[in-house]
């Protein structure tokens, strides 16, 4: 199906009501894997973080990572779930080369957390409640590289290479109940939900939840039903949608695609689909002749997990302020609009601004630098804001230097550029690049005198009352001082020396 076959979004919504289900996998930030003591640190050599257990060698056995369970409980509590007082792991049996045992150790009908909700705030401030079906523990698979096909794609590849460093990393899978009633805002709700969930996970400190690194991955299930009807339509499952923007686009695309199929009298096939970043479309996965039969059964190599109520309550007591509540508090403290706060959130700047304020900057300045110069740089470099090589403490120092008048904005930007370039902290950059505002009146006076002498014609105009022409002289002085002068003071001096009132 090509994009031209789609029904317009407006037409789709005029006839149909979307129902969504979102499944999010989060890689936990534990030190070790879910069932063995192998490190989960990034950047290791291929297959350097594997052991008999995570390679599925004959004879090996799993042992549960206590921190993995603790993180799962924290996530469950933060999602307002009931925490099971007894649950088990189950084996999900299917063959795939990236899965060393050819079964995934997961949870089936006994998840550790179930029946919760997450309130998400839409751009206009409206709060939408997404109900959570369950959150369960499982393990990640290895990574395959496909060789011989076009650009590393699986199709047409001659063979594949497998690295099992990722195999066994703890995952929490969070599944929503069917999301109904979002109407035309369904794609926005999907995006806001994933964004809110990511904030929550980060706030809990259980994962960095970086979508671009695959630490958080989303499957979007979507179906349409004719407006005014109850019964769910057949759903499609769009797998591994790995950015907030893509979640929204994938939902939107599927609404349009389903509507096109349905309104032309066709039937939706229940299938998995793949999302394409390039054009925002989805395409069907491999058609399987037979329905999957995972032959789930309780994992006999592990014993049940029965979190004591005391433990659960202890963990509940450690939960941080929920991100949405905190955001609303900060919004008031910072005096910004809902819309601005949403932009700050989308940019991943909330915590950075908080940390910068904690380091002594005022909120406006912190926001200005992170959402201005730094957001631009992050965007240019295609990295997350937090990944820029500058710390909130350094940004706070820049803001402080500006506040004291030691730097002007232009110089401050150069300081930031220096910090980002690895030249050291702000004071070092100021020192090395010689970026202090020239406040030595003598030196500045000389520079002004020289500028007046070199631009006699302009100086005459100014003396003649054309005060606006002073800008040219200011520019000359700034150039002579390599931008290190305080432009306002230069202007004052010029007018003073030429005997003109400002």
């Amino acid at each position: 199906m090509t994009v031209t076959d789609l029904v317009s979004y407006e037409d789709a919504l005029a006839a149909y009501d979307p129902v969504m289900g979102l499944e999010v996998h989060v890689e936990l930030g534990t030190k070790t894997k879910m069932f063995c003591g192998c490190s989960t640190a990034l950047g290791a050599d291929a297959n350097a973080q594997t052991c008999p257990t995570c390679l599925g060698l004959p004879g090996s056995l799993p042992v549960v990572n206590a921190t993995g369970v603790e993180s799962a409980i924290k996530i469950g509590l933060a999602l307002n779930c009931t925490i099971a007082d007894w649950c088990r792991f189950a084996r999900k049996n299917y063959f795939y080369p990236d899965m060393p045992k050819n079964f995934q150790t997961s949870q089936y009908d006994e998840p550790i957390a179930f029946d919760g909700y997450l309130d998400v705030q839409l751009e206009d401030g409206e709060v939408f409640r997404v109900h959570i079906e369950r959150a369960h523990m499982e393990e990640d698979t290895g990574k395959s590289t496909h060789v011989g096909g076009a650009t590393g794609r699986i199709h047409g590849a001659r063979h594949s290479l497998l690295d099992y460093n990722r195999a066994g990393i703890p995952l929490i899978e969070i599944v929503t109940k069917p999301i109904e009633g979002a109407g035309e805002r369904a794609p926005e709700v999907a995006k806001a939900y994933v964004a809110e969930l990511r904030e929550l996970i980060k706030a809990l400190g259980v994962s960095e939840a970086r979508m671009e690194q695959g630490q958080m991955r989303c499957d979007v299930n979507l179906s349409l039903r004719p407006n005014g009807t109850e019964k769910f339509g057949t759903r499609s499952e769009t797998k591994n949608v790995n950015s907030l923007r893509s979640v929204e686009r994938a939902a939107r695309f599927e609404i349009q695609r389903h509507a096109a199929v349905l309104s032309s009298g066709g039937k939706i096939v229940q299938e998995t689909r793949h999302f394409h970043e390039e054009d925002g479309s989805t395409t069907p996965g491999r058609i399987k002749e037979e329905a999957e039969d995972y032959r789930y059964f309780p994992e006999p190599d592990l014993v049940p997990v029965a979190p004591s109520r005391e433990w659960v309550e202890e963990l509940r007591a450690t939960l941080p302020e929920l991100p949405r509540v905190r955001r609303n508090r900060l919004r008031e403290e910072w005096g910004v609009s809902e819309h601005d706060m949403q932009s700050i959130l989308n940019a991943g700047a909330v915590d950075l601004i908080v940390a910068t304020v904690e380091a002594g900057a005022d909120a406006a300045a912190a926001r200005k630098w992170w959402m201005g110069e730094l957001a631009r740089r992050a965007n240019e470099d295609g990295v997350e804001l937090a990944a820029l090589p500058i710390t909130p403490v350094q940004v706070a120092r820049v803001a402080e230097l500006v506040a004291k008048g030691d730097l002007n904005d232009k110089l401050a930007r150069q300081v930031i550029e220096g910090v980002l370039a690895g030249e050291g902290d702000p004071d070092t950059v100021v020192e090395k690049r010689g970026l202090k505002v020239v406040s030595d009146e003598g030196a500045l006076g000389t520079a002004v005198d020289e500028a007046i002498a070199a631009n006699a014609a302009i100086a005459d105009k100014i003396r003649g009352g054309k005060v606006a022409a002073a800008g040219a002289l200011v520019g000359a002085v700034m150039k002579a001082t390599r931008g290190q002068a305080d432009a306002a003071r230069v202007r004052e001096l010029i007018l003073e020396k030429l005997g003109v009132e400002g």
Partner: protein
Amino acid sequence: MADLIKLTAAEIADKIASGELTAVEVTEAHLARIEAVDEKVHAFLHIDREGALAQARAVDEKRARGEELGPLAGVPLALKDIFTTEGVPTTVGSKILEGWIPPYDATVTKKLKAADVVILGKTNMDEFAMGSSTENSAYGPTGNPWDLTKIPGGSGGGSSAALASFEAPLAIGTDTGGSIRQPAAVTGTVGVKPTYGGVSRYGMVAFSSSLDQGGPCARTVLDAALLHEVIAGHDPMDSTSIDAPVPPVVEAARNGSVEGMRVGVVKQFRGEGYQAGVLQRFDESVALMKELGAEIVELDCPSFDLALAAYYLIAPSECSSNLARFDAMRYGLRVGDDGTKSAEDVTALTREAGFGPEVKRRIMLGTYALSSGYYDAYYGSAQKVRTLITRDFEKAFEQVDVIVSPTTPTTAFPIGERADDPMAMYLADVCTLPVNLAGNAAMSLPCGLAPEDGLPVGLQIVAPAMKDDRLYKVGAAVEAAFTAKWGHPLLEEAPSL
């Protein structure tokens, strides 16, 4: 030399400790015996001559330095080829793992090494421990030293045959439905299935995780106890390992007695299919225990009649999943990788070529039992049966201290007789597998020869979970009384090879 191989493990350990024998001498004697008879018996799949001698030399050096030796230091042992051994091939009796050299030691292997036990090599077994005759080994059958045309039991036929042919005084087996006890019974040796969780399963290639249990095999009850103590104990690498002290098995074996004990006889463990000579020797054993001061109690355990059915659903189900990892991707055999076939096809071709018929049969059966639509009727019901069997045992152990039965309904049958009749083969484990379903401890020890065929008969003793010591207390008493009655250990009646 000939006498040396007939010594018990306890005697060998004493003589090495006292300096009467060296570990190297003992090891060489056993290696020579293996060289002499194993072509006929085929107990071993791999003989680690160098490794064994190196370990023996280390023991002798340790002694020379005056360091303390373990209770079984320098005693040779035959290790079932289901335990991983770093640097030494481990095949599990399967073509699919031919040539695989594990990069790690099983916990049992580690413990044996740490106790200075000398591992002679790896013993033959039914492929993936599935079978009761060792005929399912991809590397050919093992002969029963009592009659080489008969089966040595299975799956641990290599271990039991190694003991009965005096190739090793100690062996290790694994018991999922009887694979330690049934081979012990048909070879006239002693085998113990410890309480589930008593011996670590880490590095023991899984057949059926909730049933598998490693355990000691020996020619005497005391030797089994000494080995039991070496390999048992909590292992943090095995989540199903019991975190409690090992029951005092050695002490029990040294103080055998049945006086005042209540011994249960379950009425479900006799009837059709039981060989007359087996029942005769069993009844004599019960009479003997009564003479020795035990009180005999008749028991009714109705759910035991369903044990075989439950077992042949649970074990295949778990195995269908446990054996999925043999897919030609990371280790072992790979068949059909001609550059055009998909991974999926190569996996299917490899499994087809690498697994024998019994393994395939059980994988298919387990896949069926776990399939959606059948799960509740089969796997779900089997698990309910498991509960009922456990309750029957619990009820029984309110009335008795141990339960006894024949270990197996018949003596060793001819190689080939049941090879393509799975249901007939499965019946060999009818007395042993209820124990695995409940997780209890059990022992088999010789109780005589069946008059009709002159082959050994095994007496099974069952104790409640974590009461493994009771097996040894009762077993030692029965063993002493029988040995006194016969005037010698039963194995002395075996033909010389």
